[in-house]
């Protein structure tokens, strides 16, 4: 396949995914509202003490982000699987990893990026001190693409299953643990003026690794689900 064809194929896939996403935009807003609701539940559950909320803020926001992402992952490949488009994509001869990457990029743009953009609101609700806000946004900006990349593997593995959604959460949450630990540690450290660049650096390394490896795993998973 010529380089030009691959590039155009990628853009064509992205454009299609955006069009489809736009048509289902009400559906895509739900995980984001879920994000807001979950964060709201925490003060109601643990009390509105500002210091308590500030302490648990990084963890709460990140956990809510994980939950919201998992919600949006279930439908990642499902409709294409159900109407046969996925099969056609596999047969098309285009690199399946590229197709997986395009879908993942689209997913991040419509599901992950909004989380990053909403994080200042969440930080305000959870009383996160101002020192932590920038690092929170950075951690989410680096971390949510990883959530999409790894989540796509899970989505591809479970797409052919009837109750795939529940299993998907079970599969990806353990995989998300290192990310959660690094991100919340970075934000908490930033708040008390401790170094946080180490954690962010490891997260970037994780992002690069998943960017290069995850699409292939997703492609293999898609082939498996279709077989």
């Amino acid at each position, binding site marked *: 396949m010529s380089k030009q064809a691959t590039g155009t194929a990628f853009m064509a896939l992205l454009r299609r995914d955006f069009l489809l996403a736009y048509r289902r935009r*009400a559906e895509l*807003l*739900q995980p984001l*509202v879920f994000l*807001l*609701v979950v964060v*709201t539940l925490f*003060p*109601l559950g643990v*009390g*509105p*003490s500002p210091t308590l909320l500030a302490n648990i803020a990084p963890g709460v926001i990140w956990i809510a982000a994980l939950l919201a992402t998992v919600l949006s992952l279930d439908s990642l490949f499902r409709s294409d699987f159900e109407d046969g488009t996925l099969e056609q994509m596999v047969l098309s001869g285009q690199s399946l990893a590229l197709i997986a990457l395009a879908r993942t990029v689209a997913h991040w743009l419509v599901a992950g990026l909004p989380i990053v953009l909403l994080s200042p609101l969440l930080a*305000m*609700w959870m009383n996160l001190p101002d020192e932590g806000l920038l690092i929170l946004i950075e951690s989410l900006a680096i971390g949510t693409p990883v959530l999409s990349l790894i989540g796509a593997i899970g989505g591809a593995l479970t797409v052919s299953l009837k109750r795939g959604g529940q299993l998907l959460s079970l599969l990806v949450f353990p995989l998300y643990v290192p990310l959660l630990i690094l991100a919340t540690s970075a934000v908490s450290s930033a708040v008390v003026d401790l170094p946080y660049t180490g954690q962010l650096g490891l997260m970037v390394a994780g992002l690069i690794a998943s960017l290069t490896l995850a699409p292939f795993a997703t492609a293999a998973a898609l082939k498996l689900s279709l077989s």
Partner: protein
Amino acid sequence: MNPIFLFFHKTGSPPWFYKYSGKLIPWLWAVFLALTVYGLYLGLVVAPADYQQGESVRIMYLHVPSAWMSMMIYGLMAIMGFIALVWRIRIMEVLVISSAPVGAAFTIIALITGSLWGRPTWGTYWVWDARLTSELVLLFLYFGVIALYNAFDEPRKAARAASLMSIVGAINLPIIYFSVEWWNTLHQGSSMGSDGPGIHPSMLLPLLLMATATKFFYGANLLSRARLTLLKQDHRKRWVQDLLSKESH
């Protein structure tokens, strides 16, 4: 025939509703604009700044009417929803679902203006007190109703589901409010916008004017949205076809 009965019977007919609401809407907008201009003039220019809060009290003329509307609209949705479910009146279903976005808009305005009022006055953008928290929960209830409606393929079924959800939400709302208030006293949370001494009359009039103005906004917007929904649902029916051919002249 009894004229009142006849009126209600006629409003149930979509083309009749479409035609006459269309005539009413400009008047509603006119009254809204008049009240708003006068109310804001009184509130921003004539009324004094607050002794304790300073100029930021002027946000009250937006915040309080919006909060009142957010609750009133949800209550109306529940009542109309009840009528729609019990008597299966289609126009009621349409009005319920057309009210939801307007109510959500007022709730968002109430939350944002409240937050902006809180920062200069009490030092913080957000605090988990009874009123703000209940208002936020109300916003989620609105989102839920809207999302539920959009999830169905069949419009009448969707509207009935939304009506049921509104009723359930409305019944729950006082319970939610009181539980949040109790939770608040338990944790001794601070309250934003305490009910201080009675409001000065020079501030009361603009407040009431804005409160009335928002009702006219709701009326105009509601009818506008209801007409659109009727067109969408009935686009195959004769009255819409006739309307289309008339419009192209």
